[in-house]
């Protein structure tokens, strides 16, 4: 998990498999599950527009399990409806 590099991903939606993201320069949806963890930086946790650096990861793979619940990098355990 490093500092932001291009291209970045944006959280697109929560879904049963975890979290969907897509690149800012491509409409193609990318599922981060295949990349491992996603790093969500605290300052970017603003109402559904979370910018993630490439290679960013969800902590400890917890988003990888099929669950509508996620653990953010800053520790919040949240539901997709929150």
């Amino acid at each position, binding site marked *: 998990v490093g500092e932001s590099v291009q291209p970045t991903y944006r959280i697109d939606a929560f879904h049963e498999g975890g979290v969907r993201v897509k690149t800012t320069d491509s409409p193609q949806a990318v599922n981060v599950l295949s990349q491992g963890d996603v790093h969500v930086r605290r300052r970017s946790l603003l109402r559904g527009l979370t910018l993630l650096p490439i290679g960013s990861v969800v902590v400890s793979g917890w988003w990888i399990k099929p669950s509508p619940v996620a653990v953010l990098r800053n*520790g919040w355990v*949240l539901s997709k409806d929150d």
Partner: protein
Amino acid sequence: MLFGSVDELVRSGFRPRVCIVGTGPAGISLALRLQERKVPCLLVEAGGFEFSQTSQEVYRGEVIGDRYHKLHEARLRQFGGTSGHWSGWVCPLDASDFEPRPHMPYSGWPIRSSDLEPYSIAADQLLQVKAHMPDRPMTQDIDYIQYRFSPPTRFGTVYRPAVEQSTTIGLLLNTPVLELVPGKGRIESVKVLQGSSATDIRVDQVCVCTGGIENSRLLLWSNARHAGAVVPHAAALGRYWMEHPVHVLADVATLRGYEMQFESSTPEKWYFAPSDRAKKTYSIGGAHIWMRAHANDPSYIKELWHEALCVAPEWSNRMLKRFGKEYHCGALVQTEFEQFPRPENRIELDHRTDALGVPLSKLFWKKADSERKTAATMTRLLGEALISKDIGRLRMRNYLTDGSEWPTGDQGGGWHHMGGTRMSDSPATGVVDKNCKVFSMDNLYVGGSSVFATGGHASPTYNIVKLALRLGDHLATKLSAT
């Protein structure tokens, strides 16, 4: 019967069949059980009816590893033992604690929960609590579990009259045991100090009940003095020592008042705990978890809810609209959880000695990745459960996920000293057998939490008492056959 000296004991003609070293919950429970079974016994206590700072000095010891309490403050050298500052938490070990767990090396006891169950009512009475209520599921991964709270029972106060008035329980105070003196495959006598002179008390059966550190220390020292003849199979002696780590796991934005159920002074409370399914599925240990109001810091609650509004706007706004600001609360999520047994966590003898010439304890204690995994996983599971029941939203502490050091500002440990003379089927991994008898010794037994093979999450006292009662029955049956 209180004897003023060993000489007085000898002159009295009182002939105890069991010598019990130590008068904490294990020693006194054992003595009371033996009294019921009409087996005369002798309690030998190093301290007096009250502890003294001088006496406590004997309990000093070095701790190497994680930050831990000062050893001479973590227990009491007096009649009644450490029950003198016990906080009264009562809970049985889970049935699953006794089973071998594939994800937990060295787990599994040679007895089962059902072996201790017959002693529940008697233990309840000794600890002055009502009957235990079974767990209730909150979600599939989190249970509500009941903790009962003893007044707490100070064994030295509550049971002093019973011991003093007994005709089958003898008591020697201010009589530290320096070492156990072996014969062939048995203990022949205990060497004690009275005043400035050492003397031997001959024994039939002897049970060491001096606490979760002192049991190891006394046996290690006796073994060293007698070329391994006290604990012939000593591979596990002093090892597999465990605590219940106590840490703040998270902050929780919840509804005002919810956290107060954990702060009440009721004799029973319900806590959160990972279910057996969760422990098995996620390969973690046990725990009990509760909320604790944050001490007088309005900015803490404000900051927490400010962040909740940022990361969980839908939920936070819904709560605000529904209840208004005044109903909101921020609380700490705290836990006391299971430590995996590991041989490297151990008690050794120091090169420094106490005033009696006995080596001081040196405790090597460190939490490992398994503890961090237990703490992090159960926090997540609790977070999911709080979502499921719409009770609140929690924010895990960073140390759980970023690999940083365990926080040093937390309580750290529950003052629960377990292992060191653990129970096992094999002398390769244990010191005592299923009857708390030291392997290959005919008459040497150990009582207390040092025999725990695993610690579960339950506070030890209740389980110490049940094991002591069971040991009392075993000894009574054994002696009735001879």
